[in-house]
């Protein structure tokens, strides 16, 4: 066991920091992205011909870059939504045609093409196989009808990728195709979806005979399910350790500055117990992240299968407890309407009403991450080898 990154990584960290320090205070997105790509800090998995830096796999390298970027006091507000480089690009790399790759990846990397994702539907939450929005071929165009929900950036995106039912006869998963389309066309209606917090981070998108070219399908007809999962191999969730630590630090600051009977709440034995218990959980999450990072760097993912399965649910539960203690600490300020948060504000709560927002916002975390109960099924089945749930037999099916 060795927790030092070693001299070459320490040097690399310094290099990244120097790069950041040398940046001018105002820098265009494209300039920043171009320089960071040239230096190999970003877009490591993407071939150079599509605008990437095309480097070997090195999660520690990635972690150092992301830690340095996060710590740098830079205006990152122009950062691209994760659905762009995190989802669409790897999907195209994995399953797209060469034309699609050449056309879409380069502008996506620099933010000239902005995407939104259309998976969820009002009737299909965790159960994506029951999607009902349809597309049918009319000549050389797909014609799309239906409704999608929980689509972020739908107001600013020029393009959309999503799953639509193209083979009505086929069974469940088999009837879904993965399509790309332009947002700026008649028949698309984007409506903001207000959350319980009062803020609006998501949109509903309604499709009324929306059209897209026949060859804007990724993969084959009916392969949408497989295509959408293709990017999973690029997506290594290393767990939420660092983020939970940030949130715990914010909680601790809140406790330090909250006075109870004339003394900081951190001196209240009841609060101390709750803080220390949460910190124990946060340490667990942090060390799980360390295990996953180490395993990823050494190509030993099989050793961290359980952490990979549990880290999301575990993080959700810690987040809930942090939010609850924060809400308790602000006391009467909990009567105030929440700050209308941005999606990421939970990490930097400072005002009391931010904690009201976080308290309400946490309600979503179990939902957004795919319902917690479904994760429990997965942990039980893949982690412990338990049998699948009893299920309702299909009509006409005979029980054995």
């Amino acid at each position: 066991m060795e927790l030092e990154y070693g001299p070459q990584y320490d040097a690399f960290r310094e290099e990244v920091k120097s790069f950041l320090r040398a940046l001018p205070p105002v820098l265009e997105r494209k300039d920043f992205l171009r320089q960071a790509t040239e230096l190999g800090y970003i877009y490591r998995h993407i071939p150079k011909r599509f605008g990437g830096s095309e480097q070997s796999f090195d999660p520690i390298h990635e972690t150092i870059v992301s830690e340095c970027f996060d710590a740098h006091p830079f205006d990152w507000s122009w950062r691209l939504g994760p659905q762009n480089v995190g989802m669409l690009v790897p999907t195209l790399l994995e399953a797209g045609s060469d034309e699609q790759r050449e056309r879409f990846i380069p502008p996506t990397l620099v933010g000239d093409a902005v995407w939104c994702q259309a998976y969820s539907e009002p009737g299909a939450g965790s159960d994506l196989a029951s999607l009902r929005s349809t597309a049918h071929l009319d000549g050389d165009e797909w014609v799309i009808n239906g409704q999608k929900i929980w689509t972020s950036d739908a107001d600013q995106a020029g393009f959309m990728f999503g799953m639509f039912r193209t083979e009505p006869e086929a069974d469940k998963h088999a009837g879904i195709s993965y399509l790309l389309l332009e947002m700026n066309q008649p028949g698309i209606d984007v409506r903001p979806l207000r959350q319980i917090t009062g803020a609006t981070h998501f949109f509903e998108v309604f499709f009324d005979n929306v059209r897209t070219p026949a060859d804007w399908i990724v993969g084959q007809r009916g392969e949408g399910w497989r295509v959408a999962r293709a990017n999973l191999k690029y997506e290594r969730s290393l767990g939420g350790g660092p983020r939970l630590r940030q949130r715990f630090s914010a909680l601790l600051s809140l406790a330090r500055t909250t006075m109870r009977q004339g003394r900081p709440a951190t001196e209240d034995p009841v609060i101390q117990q709750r803080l220390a218990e949460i910190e124990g959980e946060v340490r667990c999450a942090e060390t799980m992240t360390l295990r996953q990072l180490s395993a990823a760097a050494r190509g030993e993912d099989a050793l961290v299968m359980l952490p990979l399965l549990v880290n999301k649910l575990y993080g959700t539960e810690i987040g809930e407890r942090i939010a609850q203690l924060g809400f308790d600490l602000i006391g009467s300020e909990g009567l105030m309407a929440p700050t209308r948060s941005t999606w990421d504000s939970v990490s930097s709560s400072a005002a009391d009403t931010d904690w009201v927002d976080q308290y309400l916002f946490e309600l979503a975390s179990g939902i957004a991450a795919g319902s917690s109960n479904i994760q429990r099924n997965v942990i039980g089945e893949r982690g412990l080898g338990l049998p699948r749930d009893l299920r309702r037999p299909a009509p006409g099916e005979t029980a054995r």
Partner: protein
Amino acid sequence: MHFGLTDEQNLLQNTLRRLTAEQVSASRLREIFNSDVGFDEAIWKSAAEIGLCGLTISEQFGGADLPLLDLALAFEVLGEAAVPGPFLSHALATLAISLSGSDAQKAKWLPRLASGECVGGFAFAEAGERWSSADWQIGSEDNRISGTKEFTEVGPETQLIVVGQKGGKLGLVDAHASGLAREAIDGIDRTRPLSRLHFDAVPIEPLSIGAAGAIGAAGARSAAELVLDAARILLAADALGAAWKMIRVTAEYAQTREQFGTPIAQFQAVKHQLADMAMEAEAMRGLIWYAAYAFDNLPHELAREAATTKAHVTDRAVQIGRDAVALHGGIGFTWECDVQFFVKRTMFDRVWLGSPESHRERVAALANW
């Protein structure tokens, strides 16, 4: 021995339920939530017509002369329907005047409060978690009061405000008196008005400190203490109503919402969570009844029962709300889902007048643990 409701009490709840079913629709609530008025004049008037505004006021002043239990039962229904309006503060104002007003004060105010024509308010909390009467700092001089009261359930409709002062004294203030500035606050629960009140030498008419009048004889405790105990019980009753409403709504949703070809209510994880919610909610009912009964009949048990009830019920009700949202999945997280009215209602009930933790400290202190 009868620890249950009378036919009259059931009738009271059902009458109020009919009213709310007609007038407090989800779309009306959504309008209220999209504005920041916290009041609906039509609903207030209808409630006043069936006597809700004077339930505990003595008959001679136009009230129904009912015990606090009946008021708590009414508040359960208010919570169940998330009825907008400052019903709580109005009720506390009527209790304060009934308990400690002079005959002249009663004769002047109670009939107008009972009819609902005059909307009452109650202002007492001060910054720094000063909810309890022992913690109030602001006093009056020459019957003029200056200072700031926080988190008052007072809106533009409020006409008469009972104000708590140093030493647990209470006094009457005209809500439109000059020197009184009302600063509206955007609260978590938009079915209730919320304001910060700035008093600058505002005339105040004292009420007597001791408890005397139509309701109970509670030994040496001041009217202010009794009114706060009533508030604790009424908040709990409101939270119970909201909690049961969320359970029913969620149980219905679970039977219609399908996932993987099955109504989610058939998944044990969902069914058991609903069962736990129902268990918690039903267990709280008698606790509230007992505390409300104690207000009128068991003065020596009142303070501790009220504190236990406020702590326990509002704590669990919020948890029930969180579970209800989670069971709704994504839709539960939206502004459009009715559950939000009730989640926020219980959040208000939990925080207003002090946290469960502070009430559990009170429970310990009152028993000399």
